[in-house]
């Protein structure tokens, strides 16, 4: 190695500095990754895989192809115009016979019943009668249940024999497939989910607006008081934040119900008559009031952290230049707080559209969110595919807002407490 001035710098052991630095950086990269990897692995197993499993479930469609293997095979080449031939009916009889013996017709019949009411009993009743049935099966099966004599039933079976289905998403969006495979809106008296999505969004919008309205003055006050005082007042903001969600919901029940504290006070001071107590709970009002209260700290904290960084001298300068107080506020102070408004607004909105507990307890019929229907389909109607589809749509909306939030503010800037 020559001693020319252009020669690269080296470390004490003679390795060029660049290489050595690169090595050090790589080592530290690997070290950082190793430190993060246990947690990453844990979250992938305990959280990410379940989410993907749910997404899969919203399109997974094994029931018909597994339960009616022979029938589906026999239907190949069917003209889709007239009733299928005897061999298809015979295949159906064989499939049902096998299903009856294995006692696994339940999932198949539920699956088809989602698409067309009456299919559950068509299958169970037919399967029960199979023992005494004789060929030709075509007549015998149609005798057992009318549905087998309809071309649409066969079109349905053929359509749902695919391993993947869109039908849960269609149901979640109040759409359905005609027997010929066109997507149409569900009959008006069965549309429910789309309205609920909209209701969830606009009520969350109202809640976000209210938290902003109430949170802005508080954040302003906290940011402009000397620390000694603001720390004390901050506790008043953090106390509800740290208190159990169920406790806060319970207190609103105690306050708002018709025999509750607020109505009692109103009756006592003569604002309303005893018979005309306000209905403030088990409706939209209940959900909005309770959720505004619960989510208010999530608005105040980001607003506060932004306002804290605005030097008071800006307002003073604006005033000294002759601006009227309101104008100064609107033109100078307010624009500076917009990042805080965006952060708080998106945070509150995301949290709000995913709330389940509070709407379920104080929302009654009109204050219900789409989340309540996820629970309903999970636990009561047992249509897990539909539950998964609704949840996936909601997840998609949340992820979009989350990405916007991340782009605007950055998740790592989130501060707690």
């Amino acid at each position, binding site marked *: 190695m020559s001693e020319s001035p252009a020669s690269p710098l080296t470390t004490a052991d003679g390795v060029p500095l660049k290489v050595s630095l690169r090595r050090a950086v790589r080592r530290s990269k690997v070290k950082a990754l190793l430190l993060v990897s246990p947690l990453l692995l844990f979250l992938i197993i305990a959280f990410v895989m379940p989410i993907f499993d749910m997404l899969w479930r919203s399109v997974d469609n094994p029931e018909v192809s597994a339960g009616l293997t022979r029938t589906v095979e026999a239907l190949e080449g069917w003209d889709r115009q007239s009733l299928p031939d005897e061999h298809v009916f015979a295949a159906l009889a064989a499939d049902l016979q096998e299903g009856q013996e294995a006692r696994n017709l*339940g999932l198949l019949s539920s699956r088809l019943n989602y698409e067309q009411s*009456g299919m559950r009993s068509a299958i169970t009743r037919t399967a029960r009668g199979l023992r005494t049935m004789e060929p030709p099966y075509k007549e015998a099966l149609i005798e057992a249940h009318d549905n087998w004599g309809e071309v649409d039933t066969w079109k349905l079976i053929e359509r749902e024999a695919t391993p993947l289905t869109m039908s849960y998403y269609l149901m979640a969006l109040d759409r359905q497939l005609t027997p010929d495979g066109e997507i149409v809106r569900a009959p008006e008296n*069965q549309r429910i989910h789309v309205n609920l999505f909209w209701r969830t969004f606009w009520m969350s919008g109202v809640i976000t607006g209210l938290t902003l309205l109430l949170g802005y003055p508080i954040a302003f006050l906290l940011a402009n008081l000397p620390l000694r005082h603001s720390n004390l007042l901050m506790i008043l903001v953090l106390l509800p934040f740290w208190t159990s969600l169920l406790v806060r919901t319970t207190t609103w029940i105690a306050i708002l119900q018709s025999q509750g504290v607020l109505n009692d006070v109103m009756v006592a001071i003569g604002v309303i008559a005893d018979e005309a107590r306000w209905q403030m709970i088990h409706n939209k009002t209940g959900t909005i009031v309770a959720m505004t209260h619960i989510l208010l700290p999530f608005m105040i904290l980001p607003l506060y952290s932004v306002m804290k960084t605005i030097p008071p001298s800006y307002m003073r300068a604006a005033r000294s230049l002759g601006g009227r107080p309101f104008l100064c506020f609107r033109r100078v102070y307010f624009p500076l707080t917009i990042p805080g408004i965006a952060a708080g607004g998106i945070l509150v909105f995301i949290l709000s559209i995913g709330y389940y507990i509070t709407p379920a307890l104080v929302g009654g019929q009109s204050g219900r969110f789409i989340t309540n229907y996820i629970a309903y389909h999970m636990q009561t109607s047992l249509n897990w595919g539909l539950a998964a589809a609704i949840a996936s749509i909601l997840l998609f909306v949340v992820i979009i807002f989350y990405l916007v939030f991340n782009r605007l503010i950055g998740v790592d800037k989130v501060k707690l407490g």
Partner: protein
Amino acid sequence: MKLQGNHKRAVRRTLALAVASASVVGLSSMAQAQQTLNIVSWGGAYSMSQQEAYHEPWMEKTGDEIVNIDRSANALAGLRAQSQAGNVTWDLVDMLPADAMIACAEGLIEPLDHDELLADAPDGTPPSEDFVDGALGECFVASIVYSNIVAFNSEMFPEDNQPSTIKDVFDLENYPGQRALMRRPINNLEWALIADGVDRDDVYDMLETEEGIQRAFAKLDTIKDNVIWWEEGAQPPQLLADQEVAFASAYNGRIFDAMVSEDQPFEIIWDAQVFELDGWVVPTGKLDKVRDYLYFATDTQRLADQAQYISYGPARMSSSDMVSTHAEAGIDMMPHMPTYPPNFATAIQKDDEFWADYSDELSQRFDAWLAQ
């Protein structure tokens, strides 16, 4: 295929035990090590009645421990999840026959050979003849007959104008006040049609037609603004007691309980009661474990004993004759039973097959109607 294997094993076990004859059943309970039975039921007054009539005597007799799990309302979801996980922790489940039909078709619960598994009546009548119609399903054995009724708070109407028929529930003019109804189409659609003049034998035929459904919803529309919708069985007695509502649909046992133990001024409208059965199912693979208990808890004496604590009719005819007085209040239980002839005259049997087919669609329609 796994289900099939289980099923075969269960059949084999059943056969083996059949050979061993029924007398062994009595002996085996003594020889057996003490065990813990996880029994799923509905909670509240109903679980209490089971505790008094079945669980306490059984625990005393065998030293077994019985754990009550109040999950019957979501029993089907729970059974599915447990069977999917291959980790069934429930040993015996109290559920409705409609759910039992579905669970049975999915292979979640054991098929039952009733004459083999259950006790004869004291006079030797086999179970298949002793239980009331519809009480023995493929995988199901009923223990009670209960009823969905509408009750009212008698203090909220003048003495000379007390409601008495289901029509009165839909008559806001003569019987003003709020109504509390269950937030599900079941029962409400039936009552709406009957109040609209449909004969009770034609109700389910009507509901299979579009006009019938529209007619039912149109009738419900007339009271919609005056309805509070409830979701938990404990709510209707509470709402009636607080006079938040004048009428409430409810399970008859809950209303009875409030009348007797809390002395509430409630009256039941027995007109057009929708009755249904409720009873036991055995999760797949648990038959051997609960065989003895099931034999004990469904015998004539136990079913009659339960009727001392709650006003649900026993599902065995031989028990009906033994129904006497309430264990604490000492009142005659018979007139409070859904199966008491004067109460039963206009009763409707809930059509499980109809609801198995249409509950998805009608629930959705019902929700859409509520949201309008």
